[in-house]
């Protein structure tokens, strides 16, 4: 009589203790008697033990504080307000922001709309879509301007140790920064996403009062970020002006 060996799936179920009582007893008895299956089972055990070597995700000190600093601004009125107050996964805001990031990704990072001379896109330029995209771009530029002003105030306030009002402003900017960051990442715009990620972390620290723990390091972060935001903000403004000139030239 031929022996029925355990197949790979049986071995997996046996490993996880997912066989029912009778099947489990049969599998155990077979493994005791069959060297071939025992060897295959030992290999499976080694593989799954190797999987265990994957380390647990490292969690930064102060992680809980960071989570709370991000959550708190979104909690007011959240119980009954559905998606309206929180940007994460919000279909309406995501669509809006995705449109914005698409503009930024195509127009700002690639720079192909306003930086390079090309065929005359007169019809497209005049379209409502184009107008909407320009307005959205203005909105991002305004957001960066507000962020820049906050960073300037933070840099000067740190010397006097008074950041009460900056903390409230940081809290106001946090949710929108997060929204822009998530959608920039979704659109594959890593440069913008990285900048906004850095901004978000600074805002979280300011909101949570963590910046006071290491004022020197915090000042360096703010100065470095301020420089990057200035560059991006200035580039956006220049491109807006160039777009305006191009439109004016086309309409004259």
């Amino acid at each position, binding site marked *: 009589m031929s022996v029925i060996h355990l197949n790979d*799936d049986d071995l997996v179920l046996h490993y996880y203790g997912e066989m029912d009582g009778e099947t489990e007893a049969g599998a155990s008895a077979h493994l005791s008697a069959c060297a071939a299956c025992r060897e295959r089972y030992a290999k499976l055990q080694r593989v799954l033990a190797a*999987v265990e070597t994957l380390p647990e995700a490292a969690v930064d000190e102060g992680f809980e504080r960071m989570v709370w600093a991000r959550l708190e601004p979104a909690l007011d009125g959240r*119980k009954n307000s559905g998606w309206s107050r929180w940007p994460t996964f919000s279909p309406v805001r995501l669509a809006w922001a995705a449109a914005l990031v698409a503009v930024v990704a195509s127009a700002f990072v690639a720079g192909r709309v306003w930086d390079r001379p090309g065929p005359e896109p007169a019809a497209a330029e005049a379209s409502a879509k184009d107008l909407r995209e320009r307005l959205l771009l203005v909105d991002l530029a305004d957001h960066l301007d507000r962020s820049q002003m906050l960073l300037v105030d933070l840099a000067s306030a740190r010397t006097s140790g008074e950041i009460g009002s900056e903390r409230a402003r940081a809290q106001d900017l946090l949710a929108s920064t997060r929204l822009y960051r998530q959608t920039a990442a979704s659109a594959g715009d890593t440069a913008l996403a990285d900048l906004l990620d850095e901004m978000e972390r600074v805002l979280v620290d300011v909101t949570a009062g963590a910046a006071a723990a290491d004022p020197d390091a915090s000042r360096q972060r703010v100065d470095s970020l301020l420089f990057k935001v200035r560059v991006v903000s200035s580039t956006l403004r220049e491109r807006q002006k160039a777009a305006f000139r191009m439109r004016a030239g086309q309409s004259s």
Partner: protein
Amino acid sequence: MTQSDTATVALARGGDSEAFRALVERHSRAVYRLAVRMTGSPQDAEDVVQETFLKAYKQLGRFESRANFGTWLHRIAVNCSIDLIRARAHRETGHDTPDLEELGAAADAGTRGHVSPERLMLSAEVQARVQAAMDGLSPMERAAFALRHFEGHSIDEISRSLGLKTNATKHSIFRAVRKMRIALEPLV
């Protein structure tokens, strides 16, 4: 003395934001680690943590006070992770995960040479291969395997969490294990 979750949840349900903060501080690390296992991305996991606590806050009124808050939160985190994984998979339709042959070829290439399995076992190489194999799982395979292997959930529990039939859950786990074997068997 630390308040029990039951007492803290009762306060949070009454609008005490400090009580909710205490729940966040108590459970956010566990939620984050679960989310990293399921999504494979620290940044996505941070988003899952946020969304999990926001949903929990919104749904506190529906939480049964006799239930375990950690278990309830865990279920929300699993669902948020799955939502995010699905959204990400949809975004990345152009990015194919490696198939079994590719995983096997990568593992074979790793064994060419002279490093002993024992040494490899201790090295970051194995971890890198595990990570690569995990990244090669489909969203459902990853979710089912992470819940079974790392979280110790039963297949029945996983089926309920993922909204799958038991057989579909089993097959997700079988496929995940098969991919792990192909990637790692030559090394161990």
